[in-house]
């Protein structure tokens, strides 16, 4: 889906460029006609915003973030990561980022369920083979689309500008995964799809504070109860991130 979108945009850009290069007399007439129409129509097609204060077109952003992934039954994670973005326009951009969470007790923590199982089953419980995937790190690339841009007042004193975006992309995630017989566990690298939403608050023309939510869709571990069901193996962990980006 994301790939298709990107291709479409690229074709549109190429077509636009070709059209501009081969401007015919008819196109020239059209230019005058369109210009004239702006003076003599009851309803002009106007952009809602002009001279946008926070401009990102053609800029590169770099940022760090952290967050919380609490959707998994045995662990919750505090990912720490970084990302680099490029904005084709104020609305459209691409972003590459990665997060690390393979630090047990610090970035990867047991849930209450996990603690209960450890204390209840004692030595008969091996967290590596008796649970599910444990995330080690992940990296991904997403396309971001920011259709909403607005401003709000804070205590009637300060204007804050923000935009809301949606993101979609592909990535890779490294997991510690028990095998199907639950006799051993090994590190696996798997592909995942990324879906997300986010809000960027413009602190200065260069600095934004970001709140993001991400969902990762990937094919999880195979066990005896789901080995014949592809959909039964699909997993969708979700995380909330907070970060800051600086735009150059």
């Amino acid at each position, binding site marked *: 889906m994301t790939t298709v979108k990107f291709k479409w945009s690229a074709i549109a850009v190429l077509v636009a460029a070709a059209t*501009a290069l081969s*401007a015919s007399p008819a*196109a*020239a*007439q059209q*230019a*005058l*006609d369109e*210009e*004239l129409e*702006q*003076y*003599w*129509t*009851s*309803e*002009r097609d*106007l*952009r*809602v*915003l*002009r*001279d*946008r*204060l926070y401009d990102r077109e053609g800029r590169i952003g770099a940022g760090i973030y952290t967050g919380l992934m609490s959707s998994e039954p045995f662990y919750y994670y505090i990912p720490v990561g970084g990302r680099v973005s490029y904005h084709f326009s104020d609305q459209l951009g691409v972003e590459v980022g990665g997060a690390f969470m393979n630090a047990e007790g610090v970035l990867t923590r047991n849930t209450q369920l996990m603690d209960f199982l450890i204390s209840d089953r004692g030595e008969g419980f091996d967290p590596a083979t008796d649970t599910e995937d444990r995330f080690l790190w992940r990296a991904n690339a997403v396309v971001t689309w920011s259709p909403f841009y607005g*401003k709000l*007042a804070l205590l*009637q004193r300060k*204007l804050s500008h923000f935009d809301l975006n949606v993101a979609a992309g592909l990535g890779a995630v490294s997991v510690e995964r028990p095998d199907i017989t639950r006799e051993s566990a090994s590190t696996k690298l798997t592909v995942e799809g990324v879906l997300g939403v986010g809000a960027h608050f413009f602190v200065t023309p260069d600095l934004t504070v970001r709140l993001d939510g991400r969902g990762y869709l990937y094919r999880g571990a195979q066990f005896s109860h789901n080995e014949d069901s592809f959909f039964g193996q699909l997993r969708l962990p979700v995380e909330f991130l907070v970060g800051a980006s600086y735009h150059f």
Partner: protein
Amino acid sequence: MQGLNLKTHTRPAAARGARQSRWVRRLIGALICVTLVAGTASTAFALDKNQIVQMTKLGLDDRAIMGAIDSAGDDISLTAEDVEDLREQGVSDQVIDHLRRRGMIAGESAPADQAPADEEIDPLAPAPAPAPAEGESDYEREERERLEAERQAEIERRANELNAQREAEAERQRQLERAAGQLPRAAQIVRDGNNMEGARMYLEFLSYEPEQGSENWYEATFGLAKALYQEGILSGASTPLLEVLMAGADRPHFVEAFRMLEELSSRIGYNPPILEELTRFYVGDKNERFQAEFNYYMGKFFYGYNRMDLALEYLDQVPESATDYPESRYLAGVARLDPAVNDIPGALRNFEAAILAAEAAPGGNEDILQLGYLALARVFFEVGFFDVALFYYQKIPSESSRHADAVFESAWSYFMKNDFKRALGTFHTLQSPYYSQRYYPDLYILESTVYLNQCMFPKSQRALAEFKSRYLDQRPLLQAYLENTFEPEAYWQMMEDAYKPGQSAPIPRLFTNAVLESLPFYNVHRVVRALQAERAALNANISALGDFGQQVLERVEEQLELKVQEGGIIVQQRLTAVDQELENWELRSLQIEFDIDSEERQQLQQRLQNPNYEAPEAAEAGTTLMVVADDWQPWPFEGEYWLDEVASYRSQMRTECIEQ
């Protein structure tokens, strides 16, 4: 054909027997004698019964004989016995009737409706032949025979011509009947959308010159107009359409043709003066809807010709239920503002009615709504009711192209009522990217004046500096262009090129934008584009239309050339006016500069005289505030222009003048 035997008559003496030769000689001799007797004053020659018989026996066509009779003048006189003799000798009844009609039979007078003599000249009338004379010499005889031969040749030629004409006429009639049989099929073809094939069939029928006004002629002319109209060849459609309309309102296609005419007027400005003839027709028997359309159209027609009394007469007849009612009220309002009528209260009533009708129209009539509000605002501005004017100016939505004018004129209203905070806010609106391309040189002069009145001298000077850099510094380019460009076509082409992507115009876009604001230019531009589209449609179908298409194409080219010239003249006039306006505003800016110096000195003097005077607080930051809701929540302007806020800026600045 009862034709002539050419060989027989080319050399009669050689081809016929001796007896016939003698007859011919006698005839020629007689003719020569008669001619000589008749004298040279007349070109006619006398004829007698025997000659008529002789011509009949020679096998001459009846029409040729009748032509000879006509050419002979009125000298022939026959008795009833002669007529009987003629009949016995084989002279046709047609020839005898002709003699009777000509009054050449004694005792029978010519009919009262006899055609005038000057119309009786028959093309077959030969030159008078010399009559034989007694004891003629060989030379005379040869000369006589030569003349006779020439005369016979002339008779034959004219007879052939006449017969050819008759044949052609018969052929035309046959073709006409055949083509007439195709008219229903042509109508079906046009209904099916194959306009050019239909047009070709109608043209073929019309090429056989059917009787003008006949039913078939009417159907074909209307069908041709409709086919061309549907194909977008509007100029081509105009002529047959006009013929259909002028055939009368009682004809079956009058209503449909009239609606096509409305479209033609709208799209290619087709409004020839002859359309006034339409007012001769009685349309009271048509339905109410059509009557309303007719009255509105004629009202617009007379308005266009500046005949406001007639325009109002028709416009006021458009009923409230009519689709065109909002337009008719608006136009009537404008007509009442014309100096010739000068009925301002009536105009205001019309504009109000137009607005109410536009609001009530199904789906709304946004154009008339905005035009009505703008018209009301302008009338109230003119009479000095600035608050009322402002009320109406604010009715124009910011998406409308008229909003710029409304805001600009609002600025003037605020200025006139000394509301400088709102005036400055309005200036800020007009300097936003939504309107920055507009040509408003007086905006800076106004702004400078407002600042001057508030003793903000640096700001006043800055506004003048902005005026200078934005307008006056560009003026030499405009002047140079005006001085070096003479052809209207060049002005038009300059406008066409000015907006081409990647091309630079000889004058700054600010000035060409001033031309775009001109309504006459807009109207001519629309017509030019319609004609260009028509030319393209014609070129694509020229083979189907044949000579007619070529004629229409030439007419379209001619009209296009005229319209381009007209458009070029409008561009030239507008640019010249711009140049003149800038000169006037430059003078005004010099005056303000002088006032700034003078006021600055005066204020300094006041300050020295009032050393303890505390100036009012200046605004903390920025120059404007915006209002985003009815509860007047202020937001500081940070540099962004939002469409929903752009008309709501207010200045927070306070006067810096020292009270005396």
